């Protein structure tokens, strides 16, 4: 229960900072994707189900505020969360390579999906331009931010684990 409340707060903070602080820190109109970091992290840390729920909530929040159709981003994030849950079995806390690779891949897949569904279908064919000016900068910036944010999420979860373990002993 505690964990769920904390998860909810992390998503909320992620969304608030992504729409305010990181928009102010954007380079050339490109800001990092915090929500994908959260979704992917929770996906491989706690498995498929948690990833799905996190992704769904993140996406829904984006849909409500900035989506044209309710449920579009929710669906994309949902599948990204689920896909990352598959890697739960090979996740070790001390290894930062796997998270970085997964976040990089997920952000790329996410951006590319957005391009195909939101731009290509409206006959914006200049894929090289969008790749160079939106997708790649976003991926690079997101990875850069991950290096700082991921350890915080990890630390928080470790603390939660310890608190839970402590609770069990007391009970």
């Amino acid at each position, binding site marked *: 229960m505690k964990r769920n409340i904390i998860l909810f707060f992390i998503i909320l903070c992620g969304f608030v900072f992504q729409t305010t602080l990181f928009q102010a820190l954007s380079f050339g*109109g490109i800001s990092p994707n915090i929500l994908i970091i959260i979704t992917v992290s929770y996906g491989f840390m706690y498995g498929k189900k948690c990833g799905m729920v996190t992704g769904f909530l993140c996406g829904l929040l984006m849909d409500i505020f900035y989506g044209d159709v309710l449920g579009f981003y929710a669906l994309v994030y949902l599948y990204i969360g689920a896909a990352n849950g598959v890697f739960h079995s090979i996740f070790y806390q001390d290894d930062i390579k796997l998270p970085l690779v997964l976040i990089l891949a997920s952000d790329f897949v996410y951006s590319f999906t957005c391009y195909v569904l939101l731009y290509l279908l409206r006959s914006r064919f200049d894929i090289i331009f969008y790749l160079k000016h939106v997708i790649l900068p976003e991926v690079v910036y997101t990875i850069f931010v991950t290096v700082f944010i991921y350890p915080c999420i990890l630390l928080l979860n470790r603390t939660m684990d310890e608190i839970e373990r402590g609770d069990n002993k007391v009970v």
Partner: protein
Amino acid sequence: MSPVTKRKKDKFSIPSKYLLLILTCVCVALMAVTFFTDYSATPLNKLVGYVVVPFQDGVSRIGTWISVRVDELGELRIILQENQKLKEQIDELTVQNTQLQQDKYELNNLRELYKLDEQYSGYEKVGARIIARDSGNWFHAFTINKGTDDGLAVDMNVIAGGGLVGRIVDIGSNWAKVNAIINDNSNVSGMVLASADNLMVRGSLQLMAEGVIGFGQLNDSQNTVEVGDKVVTSNISDKYLPSILIGYISEISQDTNNITKSGKITPAVDFEHLEEVLVILKTKQQIGD
């Protein structure tokens, strides 16, 4: 004491396959509902309005405060110099102003004679602050800190610095989402002020990097439209009020069909540094009535 925690976990044991299926169905259903009907998720809008918007408001307030303080320190010296110059200008302008006031008086009289009432200059407006921007990098919509509680509604036009910014497309009780005209999915029916030729102003992510908006479908058989001409919203648009300044033509070229022209417009609004906007409290539909 592990059974206690175990039982807790067992309660939520839907296999992940089914959870994925269920959530997918929920998403698809939501998409179908919002796409095929006009239902715009008002309860959800309200709910997140109370949960998220206060945070966004707070964070952006702090951010603005800090950046303003930093700017202030840097600009103090320049401002002092400017102040001197401006004082001289004031004297000059006061003289001009009296003259203009006389002219205006004359103009009003003439207008009355012509019975041209100033239908569009006297809109009631309300100021709002931008508190958040689109979380993705594909579109550049933003959220303002006023909503239905302040009398705003969907389709109201948003202006800043005398130019058109966009219109409200989604609304909650204390927030509203504004779709900017530079957005890739935005089309505005415009008009060249000098020649009254209609054109379509199309936002584009590609042109956004250059700080311009594209336009097309300009039917200018007389070749009268030139670079530098003012473009305003046209009176045939069903969402935008007429005669709001959009920008100035910066580039113009003949289309391959040899009938229409297209080109670029430099917007009147500085979208990069937008912080405060004005919302016109009337929609085109209301004015038509």
